[in-house]
């Protein structure tokens, strides 16, 4: 900086010697130059601090939280925003995920019976569809529980004696009857039991949302909504196959 102003000074004095009236302009020039220089320094600083000159500015905009209709909107600081309470998962969410894993696992046991007991391609395809979507959802639920440090259910939990069955789940006796059936009898029994099984999943979703404070995290809300939509679709399909539609 000193060297630069020094050189400007030399320039100024040489110009000043030629036309005295330019000195006034010269002072303006000098002031403008300094102002420009200050701006350049400021802009470079701003760009460096933003890490990228092409990005826009994100700082110093107000953060506001509206109220209910008719109420005022309040301004809050980022620190206050960070401290605002957020809904967290609770025991009912964990029970839903753990229960649904066991529930889905039984559906997979049922679909595993299909290839050896049916001759209908449509039945095989249905079983495969159920298998793919439920296996995928099981992995999602496992990950959800793992991320939150919650217990993963034992894969045979639903076989435990004396344990209350979740809605729609087959009893040991029903499972045995299904495994013993064949051909058209199997097809009909499978569809009836799987409809009942899926309707149970819908009840589980209902119960989740009917529990105080449950189902509020974005992910569990989206997941429960998906389960509801998927199982309704499969129920529709199975009822059509049963000739009920």
């Amino acid at each position: 900086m000193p060297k630069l102003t020094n050189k400007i000074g030399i320039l100024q004095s040489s110009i000043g010697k030629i036309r005295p009236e330019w000195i006034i302009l010269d002072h303006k020039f000098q002031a403008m130059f300094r102002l420009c220089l200050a701006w350049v320094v400021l802009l470079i600083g701003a760009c460096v601090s933003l890490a990228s000159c092409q990005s826009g500015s994100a700082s110093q905009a107000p953060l506001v939280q509206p109220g209910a209709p008719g109420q005022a909107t309040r301004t809050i600081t980022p620190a206050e925003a960070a401290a605002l309470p957020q809904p967290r998962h609770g025991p009912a969410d964990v029970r839903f995920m753990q229960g649904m894993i066991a529930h889905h696992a039984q559906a997979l046991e049922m679909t595993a019976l299909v290839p050896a007991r049916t001759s209908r391609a449509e039945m095989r395809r249905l079983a495969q569809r159920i298998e793919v979507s439920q296996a995928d959802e099981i992995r999602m639920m496992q990950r959800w529980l793992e991320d939150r440090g919650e217990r993963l259910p034992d894969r045979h939990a639903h076989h435990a004696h004396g344990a209350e069955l979740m809605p729609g789940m087959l009893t040991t006796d029903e499972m045995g009857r299904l495994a013993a059936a064949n051909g058209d009898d199997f097809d009909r029994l499978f569809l009836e039991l799987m409809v009942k099984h899926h309707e149970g999943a819908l009840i589980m979703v209902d119960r989740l949302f009917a529990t105080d404070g449950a189902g509020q995290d974005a992910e569990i809300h989206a997941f429960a909504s998906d389960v509801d939509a998927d199982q309704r679709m499969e129920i529709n399909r199975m009822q059509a196959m049963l000739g009920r539609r």
Partner: protein
Amino acid sequence: MDNRSAGGSRRVVRILHAALLGGVAALLVPVVAGRAQEGASGRAAAAKDPRVGLRAGLRDAGEAARSMERVATLPKPPGFFDPQAPLGQPTPPEDEKADAKLKDLPEDHPTIQQILSGLNYANSDLAFSGHHLFVGNFSGFNVYDIQDPGRPRLVTSVLCPGGQGDVSVHGNLLVMSVEQTRGRVDCGTQGVKTAVSPERFRGVRVFDITDVAKPRQVAAVQTCRGSHTHTLVAHPGDRENLYVYGSGTSTVRSAEELAGCSGREPKEDANTALFSIDVIQIPLAAPGKAKIVARPRIFADEKTGAISGLWPGGDHGPGTQKTATTNQCHDITVFPEAGLAAGACSGNGILLDISDPVKPVRIDQVEDRNFAYWHSATFNNDGTKIIFTDEWGGGTRPRCRATDLPNWGANAIFDIVDRKLKFAGYYKLPAPQTEQENCVAHNGSIVPVPGRDIMVQAWYQGGISVFDFTDSANPVEIAFFDRGPVDATKLYTAGFWSAYWYNGYVYGTEMARGIDIFRLTPGEHLTRNELEAALSVQVAGFNAQQQSRIAWPATPVVAQAYLDQLARTQGLPAARIDVVRAALERLERTTAAVNGGPAAEVESLARDLEAGAPAAPPRDASRLRALAATLRGVAARTR
């Protein structure tokens, strides 16, 4: 000036040079690193798509672009991400063999308590008004000043969670969708403590944005299923009210919380909240009085009247996709000037007559054996075509891998012929994406190039693709932008939710990263004239779900754009094109006082071009007519 000071200044210059070089090198490092990775994975095929093999990263991912250029990027502001986990949690990989062995929790598993998924802070849909950009988020919305699109400025951040936070703007009103059970009437972040509560809000919020820095909530219309998306219908015949079509896709809440709500199947309850949309009326003079005025049964069977008259759900036979049940619309796009709406309604694409906005009437419906979930709809500018998107995998799954079928998770393009939908072709992002990138067809809008149908579209982590569908059966990509995945080894839900054209720029909402702004650049598939003709279209605001017809000004550049297209298709002999271009240039050079000759010449050419239209193929014929009309307009303005 002495030597020492000269030496000093040279040193300063050298330091400056070094600093500059260092800066440039620092800027280049990510680019070079990104390219290097491309080379490593795809050296064998030089012609391979540059989007393959891009380096992963939240802020420093490799980038590839063609005929589009990123001009600005802004990360999400404070309050719209979790500083502890900006990406949220990963989605587990799929196992094609359906191996669902349940494993025990390992002993040393880290306990991560009380985490929130990244979806709670995801950016979603966007809307425009004047020089303001409104970006929806699962936790509220952000307003940006885009007076200079190269330097967007955050104006205000509005915290009001409830997801998905789709926004639309009409005058001084902003409308927002809320579907989650955590939504609160008072915009509180804490969620709702009891299962039945008057504090819960699921539905459509209305904000007064007269003071854009401090929006005020003026209405909150509760709906049974919440609002996953919504569509504004400013009807030409009703200036006193704004209508909103609310589309709910989630579970139905209890009648204890909101009277009359039922989620039962139609045969159990004829008044079920399933199988309908919500029509909300907002009186513009008193928006606080907004209310539901109809819940039309737009899926009803024409003959039996059964409200569940469309696709029941399930596959369409061997080797086909499993399509969702039509008991909801995911999204509706209206074209009020044509009195039409296109509904992407989970199991079907439907066409509605909305001459009476309160009583939409279904006039056609289509199924598609390759569609999993009918997700969104976009008309072309003439209102003669509809692009429907299929959100196979719900947007959280990688559905653009080389192994995924090209017609699954794609767009289906339909021509509207005599008010019926006629299938023409599919379009899917042509570049394969990785297992770590959620990717499927998502939201986009029309790029207003006269004489062509062009759409810009978001594909989540598949990036942004711009394609031409002038020939509905043979869509072609003309530009793209893509980044590597946000993470190298895990699949997170991220990427572009929406990408819309607005007054010359493309605005993209990135779920995890923030917002990006782009401009298109002329190239092989888009001439400078065509691009400038698109840039000459300026609108006062834009909501992607409410389309209106764009009329191009009669300017020389619009005429030149048509001429470029006729040259491309050889719809006119090159010599003839040169004659018209020369006449246009002469007309532009002449002054008003002596314009009689050139203007008459241009008018005479316009007559000849129009006379030749009937003999030309349909697309060229319409361009010849449009060119003639533009030439006449240009000539008239000089007289």
